[in-house]
């Protein structure tokens, strides 16, 4: 049924990854940065599934990896939010570029 070439999945993932990347690099708000990171992880997931499908269906390694990435990502988000909240309390801001007391 499907005749989408593998490369297109990869391009899609890549684009998503890059958009996430851009978000991580350019957004001020810590939450936005986190959204960017999660987007990158999603792109990775697409890669895994695409490879899994186009490469070797017999092994479930790809999907399994995706499950783990999602799980770890969730944990990461939980921790991240906690830290952002804590930072917000101290700095009265969730803007990443305002948190730069440590430098040099």
């Amino acid at each position, binding site marked *: 049924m499907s005749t989408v070439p593998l490369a297109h999945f990869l391009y899609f993932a890549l684009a998503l990854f890059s958009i996430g990347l851009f978000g991580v690099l350019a957004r001020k708000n*810590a939450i936005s940065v986190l959204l960017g990171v999660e987007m990158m992880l999603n*792109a*990775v997931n697409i890669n895994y599934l695409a490879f899994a499908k186009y490469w070797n269906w017999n092994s479930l*390694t790809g999907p399994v990896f995706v499950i783990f990435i999602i799980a770890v990502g969730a944990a990461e988000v939980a921790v991240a939010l906690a*830290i952002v909240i804590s930072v917000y309390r101290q*700095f009265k801001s969730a803007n990443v570029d305002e948190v730069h*007391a*440590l430098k040099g």
Partner: protein
Amino acid sequence: MIEFSAFQTEIWLIATALLIIGVGLFLPGQKKAMDWLALLGVLGALLTLPCSGSRCGAVVCAMPPEAFHGFLRVDGLAVFFKGLILLGTFLALVASFRYLDSQAVRHRSEFLAILLFSAAGATSLAGSQELITLYVSLETLTISSFLLAAFLKKDKASNEAGLKYLLLGAFSSALLLFGFSYLYGLTGTTVIAEMGKSLLAQPSSAIEVLAVILVVAGLAFKISLAPFHMWTPDVYEGAPLPVTAYLSVVSKIAGFAALARIFWVGLTAPALLPVWTGLFAVLAALSMILGNLEALPQTNLKRLMGYSSIAQAGYLVTGLLAGGTLGIGALLFYLAAYLFANLGVFLVAAVVSSKTGGERIVDYAGLWKREPFLAAVLTAGLFSLAGLPPFAGFAGKWFLFSAAVAKGYTWLALLGVLFSAVSLYYYLQIVRQALLAEPKDPSPIEAGLLEKCVLGFCLMAIVLFGFWPTPIAQWAQSAASSLF
């Protein structure tokens, strides 16, 4: 039947962590109990090692226990890494008790438990033979570290450190995963050894190289290799002192465990090998240069140690890229030397900072007069880091650079020794304060018995490895041989 011996170390650690949480829940006032429980847990985990690593002593291991389809195998290398990680954790724990008291940290049980979870992640990483297992272990280590770094909630610096570490950590693990995904795409497997075989059979391609570079970036971040190092000073400075100690040693050792395994088992294809060894050589050089130079103007001890640890990563990578039992053996030996030296320094710092509250270098003025023993350990540790005899760092650097020269990286070795000389300058800044300057506040600093014992142990190890490196170096070599 599951071979429990393949992961009983982790079980020990996790069980201890859970127990501590339990104590924290039900007996929140029992600080001492938690402390001792944590120490005992780590010691117990350490005791599980020789019997899980090999049944015939720690040195040679004919049939390493493995479990889960071989995804987890505790070979000699894993035992060595696990041993180092546990020792590091133990020392970081000792450093944390007094510090936690002095900072009035309320969630002591959680702190200890997370530290132990993190350590479990690290030890598990050392035994992982497969990328998913490795990834999960790595994230356990890292995510717990984020929390530990941010643990002092009322401290701005700690929060900032936590945030920075978190954002960059997540970012770099995304890069790592992206790299892994292409490797998976190329090979169809996540088992490192199979991946290696598969890559061996196919021609080199651009995407393969890119994937390797992404993996390098993701893992170099963990060991704070330049130019992926930039989080290090900020996080080291901001994180609570024992956490900095923990990060500087355990996190780094785990990173090297992952690197050694992935690169020397998975990415040995002839087309790839020169790419990443060359890359590591350049990064090592960069680390030595940046780490040492930027350390020079520092005034905060933790920040300075951050830069120092970047430079040390540079030296260590020299052994990694040289490879072979010589190179990896040197890496392992130096890690051991680094562990005792660095944690000795941090332990002293923890004791001093608990008393004075200061973390600047000038706060160590006249330490010699206030507590000679602390000053002695500090000096020995710093000189060992600088690679001067009779301390372990000297032998370690000798091994590392000789491995580098053996592989033709003479320029790197030269750079390394020259920048070791530069590094001596900033280490001496601390030593000068500690030994030569007059104390502003002459009141004595007394270390506890436990701390003293542990410091003595560190000192002994530093000196002993320096004077007679043979046994441990031999062990390191035989451990390294399980990779090749």
